């Protein structure tokens, strides 16, 4: 993980870049991205005719490219993007491209520490993954899902080793898809393979699969659960026991199953996005206790408050006692913490962030085109063109806020009392 202790938690306010002025320098400036520690702000810019570059804190990279997209900071602060030159695609990290180039790069994922950068690539019509520029030895004629281990050491995809022509429905139904881990395919084939999750240690892989048109199950390292269901959703690992938990459908209703056995006694109209508390003592999921109403259920017991549009981004506090989630009703977004809704609604609400001591919750929100940070239900006094997710200091007393106001990107360290009062 990233050691955020090393970040500057003392400088109160720092004007990092006059982002508004970039428009004068470049013909075109795309969305801004802020580095995790707040020290950098970057954007894809058009630096000349048919030439694109990345501007970081006002300075463009020396390299230019024919095309750039998907500019993202990794967890370790390295800035990556997918770039094209001379019809070849690759990944550029802090301006340096990988040595290998590809026919296309679709997706980039980072390990939790940011050290490994993995990409979903296509080369000569063959698909696979590349880690830090090194592609799999075996590529496949099709790949649809891309997953990596938390440490980024291993990559996996849903692949089709054999060709499949259009209209070959019976061949398809015999099973043409499987999982390739680091380029090596499992022996067993399935009709479909979907969402895949590595265990926290990266040693096991659980995937959603369909063994024929009607039977869905979870497959772990190539071995299916003995039970199948009319439908399943994405599995997760119990971080302590290694057991696998996935939402399953039976008789038109949803609940959670562990290693194939139904584990909750309650059934729901819908149940997904299950998650364990950090100590694995609690299991929560987003559920629809009745048709058209959404909430969070903890260990099978739904909260009383429900939302009509959706509930999303449920997050356990580090101590596992609280859950914060985002709710949406009549297209208005709000925040709900342990079944209590915060008073105001917003046009958009991002993912809640807990302080390390679990006491405070801060969230990026947007209303009428202006963004700010909400903490424990109270908005920060500044309304910005853009803010990024807040980050609490390790002791929880301060908060890093990254924002753009009046065309100026600031990095601020706020005592949390500035918002909570």
């Amino acid at each position, binding site marked *: 993980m990233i050691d955020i202790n090393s970040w500057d938690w003392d400088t109160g306010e720092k004007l990092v870049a006059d982002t508004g002025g970039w428009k004068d320098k470049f013909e*075109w400036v795309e*969305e801004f991205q802020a580095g995790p520690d707040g020290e950098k702000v970057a954007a894809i810019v058009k630096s000349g005719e048919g030439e694109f570059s990345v501007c970081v804190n006002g300075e463009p990279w020396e390299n230019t490219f024919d095309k750039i997209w*998907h500019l993202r900071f990794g967890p370790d602060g390295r800035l990556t993007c997918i770039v094209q030159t001379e019809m070849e695609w690759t990944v550029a990290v802090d301006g340096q491209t990988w040595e290998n180039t590809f026919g296309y790069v679709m*997706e980039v994922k980072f390990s939790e520490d940011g050290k490994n950068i993995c990409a979903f690539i296509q080369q000569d019509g063959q698909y696979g993954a590349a880690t830090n520029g090194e592609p799999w030895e075996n590529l496949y004629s099709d790949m*649809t899902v891309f997953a990596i281990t938390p440490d980024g050491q291993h990559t996996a995809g849903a692949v089709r080793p054999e060709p499949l022509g259009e209209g070959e429905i019976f061949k398809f139904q015999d099973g043409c898809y499987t999982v390739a881990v680091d380029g090596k395919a499992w022996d067993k084939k399935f009709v479909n393979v979907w969402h895949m999750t590595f265990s926290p240690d990266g040693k096991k892989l659980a995937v959603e699969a369909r063994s024929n*048109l009607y039977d869905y199950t979870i497959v772990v390292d190539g071995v299916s659960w003995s039970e199948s269901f009319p439908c399943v959703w994405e599995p997760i690992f119990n971080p302590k026991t290694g057991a696998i938990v996935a939402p399953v459908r039976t*008789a038109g209703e949803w609940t959670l199953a562990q290693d194939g056995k139904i584990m909750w006694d309650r059934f729901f109209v819908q149940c997904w996005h299950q998650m364990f508390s950090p100590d694995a003592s609690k299991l929560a999921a987003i559920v629809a206790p009745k*048709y058209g109403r*959404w909430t969070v259920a903890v260990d099978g017991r739904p909260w009383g408050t429900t939302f009509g549009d*959706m509930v999303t981004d449920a997050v356990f506090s580090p101590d596992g006692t609280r859950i914060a989630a985002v709710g949406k009703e009549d297209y208005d977004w709000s925040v709900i913490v342990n079944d209590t809704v915060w008073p105001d609604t917003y046009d958009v609400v991002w993912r809640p962030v807990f302080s390390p001591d679990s006491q405070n919750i801060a969230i990026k929100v947007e209303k009428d085109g202006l963004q700010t940070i909400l903490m424990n239900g109270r908005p920060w006094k500044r309304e910005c063109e853009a803010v990024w997710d807040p980050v609490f200091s390790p002791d929880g007393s301060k908060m890093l806020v990254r924002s753009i106001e009046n065309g100026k990107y600031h990095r601020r360290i706020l005592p949390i009392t500035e918002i909570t009062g």
Partner: protein
Amino acid sequence: MAEGQVIDGIYFNEVIEDAGLDEGTKKLTPEKIERVINDVLKGETGARLKTYVDTCIHCGLCSNACHYYLSRDKDPTYSPAGKVKQTMWEMIKKKGRVSPTFMKRASQIASTQCCVCMRCAMYCPFGIDIAYIMSVVRRICHLLGITPLYIQDTAHSHAVTMNQMWVKNDEWPDTLQWQEDEAREEIPTTRIPLEKEGADIMYSVIGPEPKFLAQLLYQAAIIFEVAGLSWTMPATPGWDNSDMAMYTMDSEIMGRVKRVHFETARRLRVKKIVMGECGHAFRSVYDRGNRWLGWKMHPFYIEHAIEFYYNLLKSGKIKIAKKYEEPVTLHDPCNVMRGRGLYEMARYVVSEMCADFRDMQPNREHNYCCCAGGGVINCGPPYKMTRMLGNRVKAEQIAATGAKVVIAPCHNCHSGLEDIVSHYKLGTHVKFISDILYEVMEKPGAV
């Protein structure tokens, strides 16, 4: 396509070779059929189906609603109730003890001789939803593995790629970047913003657009650019809003595809989803896929292209430079007209764009289906004549307007009408609203 004949005691009004049905039927056993029918009747359906069946007094008043019936010289085997008689009534009466050939015929009826357009629901005095009954028949056929080959292949595409046309993960963003390049030649500032989190609008389209109709993406990019909107398109699966699994009644895949679509909008933190000119995709996000997932309505406001253009024109964000001169008529696609009541907005948009608009008769929610929808055109070439002979009334309706252009704000309608126009030699062109809008709108930034 041969004329009607009796096979194994079952009357087929059209005899068509289709590997999906023929091979699938060979694998059926009476026991399997009985079990699946009863599983569906007891397990998946309930009072609604029973009430519909018990309430129908066999009056035949629904027949005049159906374009197949009207176009087939009032052949009663094509009437809505007639189709129920040949499928669901018999299954219920025989408690599922029907023959494989019966099921093959049932699949043919439900998948290719009914567009689930719901026009008959407006002609039944009791509001019996025959489209729903046909969907139940399709569901049974799906579970029995007897679905026409090509639509089944499309459902497989949805299951693998989450899009309709086996478009691979790289082909989608690559096509967008290509069309962005093209559009920049016209308006240099044009962008197709990929993966722009927090944009106001996620624009979603159907699989065939990147596959064959990249021009539509170009036109959309220009329209968004000129209107000055904050928008984005996802680079990941979830960009496709279409759903043929809905029409094969592989509801689990339908739900999966819709989930990815909505979750993509959620991930991108947009305020609403705007979708291209497609009808069935609208149905799947508006009242089918969302319902299967447990959403009473949709979690994000879904604006169909018609409403989107309406708002752009009404608010003056898009201005018309010079109206389209040729006489045009408008086809009302069932899924956004009967399905969403956008007919007045569509007429406003067409009247703003075109100088000579001529309405078809009947129109609005009473308009005849294109005979391509409901997955029928997706059943592929074997059923082309089913669609042609099954929609003479549409040809007559179009011809009577004297229009040179038929505007069809739906992909399936577009393709279906194109066939009708060429089969009946109507000499008209079929266009999307965006084709004309792109042509007649003011483009201030263009070079």
